[in-house]
């Protein structure tokens, strides 16, 4: 039938204002950023938010229940639990941010290279498949256990474990862009590899990368806590939410506060990051529909189906 041009409705308002409006109409994103800002502020301002020292031992004050003096009570060595929680959050955020940054950067490079060159694709993706097959906690535990429980090793182990998930996302997003004709055109014009990757593919893989990074942030905090809880993570006197809970477990009959308070903060952080991730995905990719956290899984299923065709 008649081919029809769409009519412009009205002049679009400024981009910035639209972005703000979209931000505030996205409850997941707003809640997520709110939770994370509060938690992060609490941790970053640690020397001001608490007057206690996380390491000072006061044996007289052992296992005191929460009170005006010790908001979250004290632990088996008389240390202030609130203070240790606040410093623990610092460690969690440090580990999460480092893992996300390093795994994000390496994953981005690997993903782009795989999308660009078939040889890289074969090598890197086989390695990723292999790493992916390991249960992530067990792989991380083994690495840390063998290398020695230190914060740096925890970060290294988690980075190795989470690179494949980022590389895969980047690769598939880059492949989609690469099939577009404009990349073909650039190639025909003689544009170099780095120009095409940096200027044209990078911006297009950025939103899936950011979304995935926020989930990696959440899982690495979660895994770090599990590792420390099992005694294969952040080593003892340094507080981390995981080893606080390990301490708590040993006195769970006597001191519930040592389990409940660090626990609530872990949940808050991971919940906040998950909300942030879900919200970001809606924000950056409005077409994707809200509950498609598992869209990639579904895509994998479809890929499987297609592969078998």
């Amino acid at each position, binding site marked *: 039938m008649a081919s029809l041009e769409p009519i412009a409705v009205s002049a679009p308002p400024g981009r910035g204002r639209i972005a703000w409006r979209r931000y505030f109409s996205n409850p997941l994103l707003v809640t997520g950023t709110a939770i994370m800002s509060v938690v992060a502020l609490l941790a970053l301002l640690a020397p001001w938010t608490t007057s206690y020292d996380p390491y000072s031992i006061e044996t007289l004050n052992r296992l005191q229940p929460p009170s005006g003096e010790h908001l979250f009570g004290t632990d088996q060595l008389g240390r202030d639990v609130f203070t240790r929680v606040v410093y623990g959050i610092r460690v969690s955020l440090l580990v999460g941010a480092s893992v996300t940054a390093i795994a994000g950067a390496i994953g981005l490079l690997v993903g782009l290279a795989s999308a660009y060159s078939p040889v890289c694709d074969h090598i890197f993706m086989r390695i990723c498949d292999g790493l992916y097959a390991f249960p992530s906690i067990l792989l991380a*535990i083994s690495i840390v256990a063998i290398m020695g429980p230190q914060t740096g090793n925890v970060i290294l182990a988690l980075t190795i474990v989470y690179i494949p998930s980022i590389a895969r996302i980047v690769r598939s997003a880059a492949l989609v862009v690469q099939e577009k004709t404009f990349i073909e055109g650039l190639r025909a014009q003689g544009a170099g590899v780095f120009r095409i990757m940096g200027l044209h593919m990078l911006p297009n893989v950025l939103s899936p990368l950011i979304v995935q990074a926020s989930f990696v942030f959440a899982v690495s905090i979660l895994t770090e806590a599990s590792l420390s809880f099992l005694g294969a993570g952040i080593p003892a006197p340094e507080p981390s939410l995981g080893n606080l809970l390990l301490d708590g477990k040993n006195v769970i009959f006597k001191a519930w506060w040592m389990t409940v308070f660090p626990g609530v903060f872990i949940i808050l952080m991971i919940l906040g990051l998950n909300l942030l991730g879900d919200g970001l995905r809606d924000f950056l990719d409005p077409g994707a529909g809200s509950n498609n956290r598992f869209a990639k899984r579904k895509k994998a299923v479809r890929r499987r189906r297609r592969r078998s065709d």
Partner: protein
Amino acid sequence: MTKYIVQRVLSLVPVLIVVAVVVFLLIHLSPGDPASVILGDEASEESVAELRSRLGLDLPLYRQFFVWFGGVVTGDLGDSIFMDMSVTEAFFSRLQPTLSLAVLAQTIAVGIALLLGIAAARRRGTLTDQAVMGFSLLGISVPSFLLGLFLILLFAVKLKWLPVAGYAPISSGLWNHLRYLILPAMVLGFMQAALIARMTRSSLIEALGEPYIKTARAKGLKPGVVTYKHALRNAFIPILTVIGETFGTLITGASVVESVFNVPGIGQLIISSIQRRDFAVIQGSILLITVTYVLLNLAIDLVYGLLDPRVKLNGGRGR
């Protein structure tokens, strides 16, 4: 179908090779000489040297790999340094608690998840739907050991209904067996239910929007028949994939929960081996677990081929 199976099996070969290499290299990550790390600081030079040659550590790296890999292929994963048995024996002696726990947890998870996921999809956008989504967000946000501790606080410490931790084999009576497993199974089940419910909801919603659903309604079928016979059967294919994957993680990744509840399963074996630096057991168990996981995924793929007629047909046609 045969071609499909062969293809799938062949695609596993590179994955398994990478897995083997990584597992082999794990032990070489240790700072310094593995033999002296294993034996600790006070060991004499002779005993370290003896262990080195026993573990083959004095060979060049690639020869070590082939010696080790040759053993793996013939089913010899080495011996535990601390327990008086081979790694395979140690592994299989700990398999039963892990399997019991996994089966119980998966039953709980699938039951809850299908119920919630279907309810949410059928009442999309209502309060039910939002509650289910909230539940599943919580499920992926609460660390398993933490949920375990909370449940222990509630059911074992406060209410005293169930034992705090431990394990009793089936031979001591089914109820006794289950009593110990209920809490850890609830923890694992809850987390898996979150994943499966999300998948159920989203794939059922997708299936309910397909044109063939309209055809089914236009035939005059009842809404229940449309949902369960026509939509769910189609939605079930991705759901099954997630169920399979989560079952894989239950068998392989229950280590944290096992250690919270002191269940003597595979996870605990690995963690105690890590504390004892029993490298052969760590290597062997991780290898076995990962291979199990890979094979489970293969099994899911094959079942998938049975469920979806489009996959069959000698690997040809399809959409």
